[in-house]
């Protein structure tokens, strides 16, 4: 089976680099599935899980935005932060989720709604990935 190299890079270093058979992720205008031999492509990602498939197994990576660069044999994901399912601190994510939800519920005019929503999305994404 043909494979492609997937690497996930953040400013704090490389999170993951390995060979997979398929990658699927959610770009800003919809779901993207990438197989080896894909044409070169650049697309911004949403805050969501990236699914990596190999030998009928699936690895999940929580990616917080950023973008994806595809070449025929290599996919690079550049994001401000990203974690493998096993590296996620679920307690911390739960706390962040609660904090963000409270901020949004309080309807305080000083709240940066955009930022709170993003924080909520990030926390939910981490929790979802960790629980799968």
């Amino acid at each position, binding site marked *: 089976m043909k494979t492609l190299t997937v690497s996930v*890079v953040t400013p704090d270093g490389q999170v993951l680099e390995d060979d997979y058979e398929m990658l699927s992720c959610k770009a800003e205008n919809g779901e*993207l599935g990438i197989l080896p031999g894909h044409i070169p492509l650049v697309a911004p990602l949403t805050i969501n899980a990236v699914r990596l498939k190999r030998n009928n197994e699936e690895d999940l990576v929580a990616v917080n935005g950023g973008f994806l660069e595809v070449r025929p044999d290599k996919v690079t994901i550049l994001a*401000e932060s990203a974690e493998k399912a096993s590296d996620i601190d679920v307690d911390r994510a739960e706390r962040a989720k609660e904090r963000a939800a409270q901020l949004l519920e309080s309807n305080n005019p000083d709240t940066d709604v955009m930022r709170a929503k993003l924080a909520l999305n990030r926390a939910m994404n981490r929790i979802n990935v960790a629980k799968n």
Partner: protein
Amino acid sequence: MASLKDIQDRINSTSKTKQITKAMEMVSASKLSKAEENAKRYSFYSNKIQEVIANIASNNTDVTHPMLQRREVKKTGYIIVTADSGLAGAYNSNVLRKLYQTVEERHTSTDEYTVIAIGRMGVDFCRKRNMPVADTVIGLQDQPKYAEIKAIASNAVQMYENEEIDELIIIYNQFVSAISQVVQTNTLVPISNIDSVKATSSYEYEPSEEQILKVLLPQYAESLIYGALLEAKASEHAARMTAMKSATDNADDLIDELTLSFNRARQAAITQEITEIVGGAAALE
């Protein structure tokens, strides 16, 4: 001449100081190697972003974005990167002097600029001189994580996007080597020097180049701030290491000198005693 006890006390206190400076030197040396590693890890990320932006910019010249366009400068934002503490030689004062000179040269009133200060030394400096300060960060870790400076970086970029400032300049110590750090003044936005990177391949863009630039450019500008910060941290540890090394060397010299005069004083005391005894014996004969 100082008494034997005085000299002995000075020798003791100098060697205690030496112990401390020596320890600080070694701590900084180990922090420096970690900071260099961080900077290396980060460079992969920044190179990649640069490559993609350069590709978009070179493939298509009519793509525009406010962050790529120079506009009339009414207000300038300065980010200064300093340490939280001194004892690092000229590390802090170099940055602060550069800021002061630049401001004196380019601006006539405090409405024309604002400072984003990272590090206690920088914050104190601006407060004391009544410079306008937009944002401050104190107590940054020695090996800063991206999440820690994400807020300040995106605020700074946001200020540019909201047209509160028309250019963003960062002043920091560039890391050349362990013994040499140079003050750098870089314009972060508008982004100008992306053409220097060679475009290697052409891409499909999903959904469009403009959309991608909208995501990419702020992310890039923020990552530049982080990159400068990592380099400044490496410089800080290097500067502190060098400063502490020369302090240790000075303490060594001082101890040598003091030991010499201690021995001289002791010898003088002995000689005097002998002379007195001999003199006393001679008087009895």
